[in-house]
């Protein structure tokens, strides 16, 4: 396999509603990524598009719909979709295009426009559930997360306040992100604990918002990367794994599928002791408890230990294991697949030393990003090196 580098990243603002269409958002993100890479569209050999359920945009076959904005016209082009997991899975698809020798330069473009569906994106989420076993109960997607969170809290005896600290950290980190939708420099644990109960134990401030946004990455082979970039960031391990769709048959307290995906990625990256070797991490945080769940699944904390690390400040931007220095989905926003910009994109910027006010100290050398999706059963993981 050939070495593959990220040499540019771009993203739009994340907002509840943007004027721009999905194609226009893709175009903006791609332009920003190509500018940083110092390349033009004619240099791109292939394009990977990532987007979550078609029902948000109301256009089926969204990959084709977004094609021109993603820069894919008359090129090898494909769409990948693993729900929220698309955020780190489309970069993996981009990686295999280059690693295999099929392409030297690949654009990865993720998009989500959740504002088009009215009255609320929840209407589209209702179509995710099993039509026969689940939908007659008229479920809300938040239920499934609330039940997972409750199981996690109960099995490991976790206090709600220790989970709320994640929301506080990420919304404060997001103050330094120019694209952020929900940054809050003054938020406190009490604000989270006193916010409206949606589906206990999930409260209003435990949850990331629906957003519009797009993001893009430029991936390159070693030859191209060394020619055009002074700060290539290498993709040194990838992994992904999916567990049973029968979510009511699984113990929700630990994401076993993620541990498998992480082991695959660490193995490829020759990471023997992730807790010692990983300098910065962007786990998927659509809910505050998910950051904790995912740190444990990534084997960066023992089961039930992530809340303690959070309480002790280990996961702060200047802590021993900076976690979601971007501000994450909790602070920057959650345009599902487009959160690639604050997962793979953020780790690229951090390892390239280009994260500006979000830069974690000590020039980090090894970073991990992760995303989570489908019916809370899938994870994608990427290990990157400066």
């Amino acid at each position, binding site marked *: 396999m050939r070495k593959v580098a990220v040499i540019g990243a771009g993203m739009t603002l994340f907002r509840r509603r943007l004027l721009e269409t999905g194609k226009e958002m893709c175009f903006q993100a791609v332009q920003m990524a190509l500018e940083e890479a110092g390349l033009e569209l004619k240099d791109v050999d292939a394009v990977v598009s990532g987007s979550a359920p078609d029902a948000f945009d109301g256009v089926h076959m969204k990959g084709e719909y977004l094609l021109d904005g993603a820069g894919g016209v008359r090129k090898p082009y494909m769409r990948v979709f693993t729900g929220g997991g698309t955020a780190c899975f489309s970069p993996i698809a981009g990686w295999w295009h280059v690693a295999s020798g099929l392409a030297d330069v690949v654009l990865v473009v993720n998009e989500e426009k959740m504002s088009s569906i009215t*009255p609320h994106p929840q209407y589209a989420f209702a179509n995710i559930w099993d039509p026969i076993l689940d939908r007659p109960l008229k479920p809300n997607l*938040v239920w499934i997360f609330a039940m997972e969170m409750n199981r996690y809290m109960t099995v490991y005896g976790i206090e709600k306040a220790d989970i709320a600290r994640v929301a506080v950290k990420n919304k404060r980190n997001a103050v330094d992100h120019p694209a952020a939708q929900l940054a809050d420099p003054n938020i406190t644990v009490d604000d989270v604990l006193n916010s409206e109960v949606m589906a206990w134990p999930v409260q209003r401030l435990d949850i990331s918002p629906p957003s519009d946004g797009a993001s893009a990455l430029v991936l390159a082979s070693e030859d191209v990367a060394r020619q055009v970039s002074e700060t290539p960031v290498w993709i040194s391990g990838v992994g992904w794994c999916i567990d049973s769709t029968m979510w009511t048959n699984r113990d929700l307290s630990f994401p076993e599928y993620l541990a498998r995906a992480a082991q695959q990625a660490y193995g490829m990256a020759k990471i023997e002791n992730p807790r010692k070797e990983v300098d910065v991490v962007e786990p998927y945080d659509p809910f505050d408890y998910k950051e904790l769940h995912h740190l444990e699944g990534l084997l960066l904390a023992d089961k039930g230990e992530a809340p303690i690390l959070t309480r002790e400040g280990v996961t702060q931007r200047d802590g021993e294991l900076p976690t979601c220095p971007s501000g994450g989905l909790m602070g920057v926003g959650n345009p599902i697949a487009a959160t690639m910009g604050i997962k793979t994109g953020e780790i690229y910027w951090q390892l390239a030393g280009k994260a500006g006010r979000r830069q974690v100290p000590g020039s980090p050398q090894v970073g991990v990003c992760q995303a989570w999706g489908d019916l809370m059963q899938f994870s994608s993981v990427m290990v990157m090196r400066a």
Partner: protein
Amino acid sequence: MGRKWRGTPLTAADIAEGRVATAEWRPEAKYAWSAGESIGRFLEELQEGHLVGRKCDVDDTVFFPPRSFCQEHFVRAGEFVRLKNTGKVETYSVSYLDTDARRLEEPVYVGVISIDGAAEGMGFMHFLGEVEEKDLAIGMRVKAVWKPKKERMGAVTDILYFKPV
């Protein structure tokens, strides 16, 4: 860095009051699903007031809800097995949200209930009832409360909810 962070934020009112050009569409698609072999039998048994699982003949694992093949051994599943009407709450939530994210005045209690006689931890989602919020607990023993027989339709809602034993 000189990066250009672009995007033009809109408010809900910008759209509702026609300050930007928009177009509308309402899909009218309607679906009717065949429940399939195993879930079809499951629904028929529900109408009769029974819960059924289905066995893998390789290691006698009892799946609940029943399914037509074993995802581990990848063989066709064996006999259907009638299970008890009782089980255990594996997790639950107290929800103030309806399916369209509108706020409910009174919350609904929803949980995952693993069924006695099925493999460890194999359950399904259903409501919890005849219980105070403060008494809800993971590990709580519960039993099914059925609709009157003539109102049952062969659907998971033939069970009204599970109540504490």
